[in-house]
């Protein structure tokens, strides 16, 4: 009959109207500032710089290689290299960034800087309440604000952080093995040289020519 569908529809909306007062399951709205949904592990918003140890600026893993600066599609990273060097986590002497700025208003959260970083030093943060009342200085995030401890990374992305830690540990182990091998080789060379020096054969002129 004509109009039957309208009656059915009205009944359905009435059921929804009354039901929303009876059962809270119907109301899927998250009342945002008071309530938040838990974040997904792979959520990403804005990069941060990982540091080891306790001093944020001394422990930065970044070696100012500028790969991220070059790869960044919207070109929102600005790095100034240092003139001097300092030892990194492996004890190797490296440059470090004097300035490391990211423009929050330009960053598009693509994570390419993270993908290209060979030093596990830039990672994506999950913080999303990044608004500021200062639209010029406030949106240019500089090194002290970007530096966050490795524990923070472990907390927000546990799986990735474990992988990253393992990779770094492997690097350190490799470096140590290499150092040990180098030391052994050096010792061997030194021992040989000593043995040669002690030998009676006079080969010194040949060495001098070589």
């Amino acid at each position, binding site marked *: *009959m004509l109009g039957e569908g*309208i009656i059915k529809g009205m009944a359905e909306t009435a059921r929804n*109207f009354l*039901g*929303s007062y009876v059962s809270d399951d*119907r109301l*899927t*709205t998250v009342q945002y500032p008071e309530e938040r949904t838990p974040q997904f592990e792979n959520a990403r918003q804005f990069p941060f710089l990982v540091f080891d140890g306790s001093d944020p600026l001394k422990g930065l893993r970044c070696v100012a290689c500028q790969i991220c600066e070059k790869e960044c599609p919207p070109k929102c990273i600005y790095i100034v290299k240092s003139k001097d060097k300092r030892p990194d986590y492996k004890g190797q002497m490296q440059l470090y960034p004097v300035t490391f700025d990211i423009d929050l208003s330009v960053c598009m959260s693509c994570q390419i800087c993270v993908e290209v970083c060979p030093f596990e030093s830039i990672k994506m943060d999950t913080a999303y309440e990044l608004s500021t009342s200062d639209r010029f200085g406030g949106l240019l995030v500089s090194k002290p604000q970007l530096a966050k401890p490795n524990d923070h990374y472990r907390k927000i992305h546990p799986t990735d952080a474990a992988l990253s830690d393992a990779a770094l540990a492997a690097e350190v182990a490799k470096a140590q093995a290499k150092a040990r091998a180098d030391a052994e080789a050096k010792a061997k060379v030194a021992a040989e040289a000593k043995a040669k020096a002690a030998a009676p054969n006079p080969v010194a002129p040949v060495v001098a020519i070589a």
Partner: protein
Amino acid sequence: MTGLDQVFVTLKHWLLGQLANILPNGLLPVVSVLLSIAAIIMVFASLFAIMTIMERKGLGRIQNRYGPNRVGPFGFLQPAADGIKALIKEDLVPRAADQVVHLLAPVMLVVPALLVYAVLPVGRNMVAIDFDAGLLFFFAVGAASELAVFMAGWSSRNKYALLGAMRAVAQMVSYEIPLILSTVSVVMLTGTLSPVKIVEAQAGHAGWLPDWFVFTPWGFAGFVLFMIAANAEANRSPFDLPEGESELVAGYFTEYSGFKFALFFLAEYLSLFAVSGLGITLFLGGWQAPFAALDFVPSWAWFFVKLLGLIVLFIWTRGTLPRLRVDQLMNFAWKFMLPLALINLLTAAVWHYMPPGMPRWLVGGALVVGPYLMLGRGLMAGKHISKRTYRYAE
């Protein structure tokens, strides 16, 4: 009882009495009219605020949302926030717009929406002008809103505005006919065009039912037709084609911003209240109580209770029905509502000339239900309506 019932009338007379001491005699009629106007604007503008929050919360609940719940307790101060926002917003006028017409259109829309309240009896002795041709005045003034809508659409120089305005005029002209025809039966039976006399004609009780016209076959059909046409006249969903958000941005008031935009909304809601008030006056017994035992409740309270009931009905339909297509809209007006409204005139005449009793009810009922079923069947005959299937989706 009469004290509370006539409290506003007494108040006005007292105020006029006080003012008579200060003002010259010639000014008193003007002051009297101004007092009525102030009361009407205050009451119905606050009703507009109440309806917007009710509508937003009700639609929210229908869609399993909370609706606005931030401003004030349970969000009930949201209209105040909206009003302040509308007032402090920048008022943009397109450079190509016809400046004068663009400025006048919202005013032109609000003025008739307010004027029609002059003849609406909102309680016993509570009508601004007891006008013998009140009904005629109501429709004549109400028709001016079409002009304002077209002024708004035309002066904006915007394709959406113009399309919306053309749709609005087509729709409002089409639905004006069933709207007026459905009220003609009331005029036929009461023999008067005065809304006050029409309300008085519905006093009394036949058995347990009040003598309201909605409780007769022709009155019921007339009321339903009237409400559908009123919905279309007010451009509300499912007849909101002139301002269909998904198609025309905001229809004829696309190019309005700030308080002019708010004026369009105000006018729309005011005319909705006015036409609902007319529906109450014509079919729902106006300010009469439904039962003699409830006569102690003031008459104006009954009017507003009925008005709120109709408003809830409007919100409910808006939350339920999807928007029609233009051809469906026109077919519905001309092929379905117009014949039914014409047949309803016959039904009313038959009802008037048959003696009271069961046969009258049977004949009247048959004259309403029969054409409804036949027309419904006939219009649906060539159509094959089935569940929509999708080739790629699902």
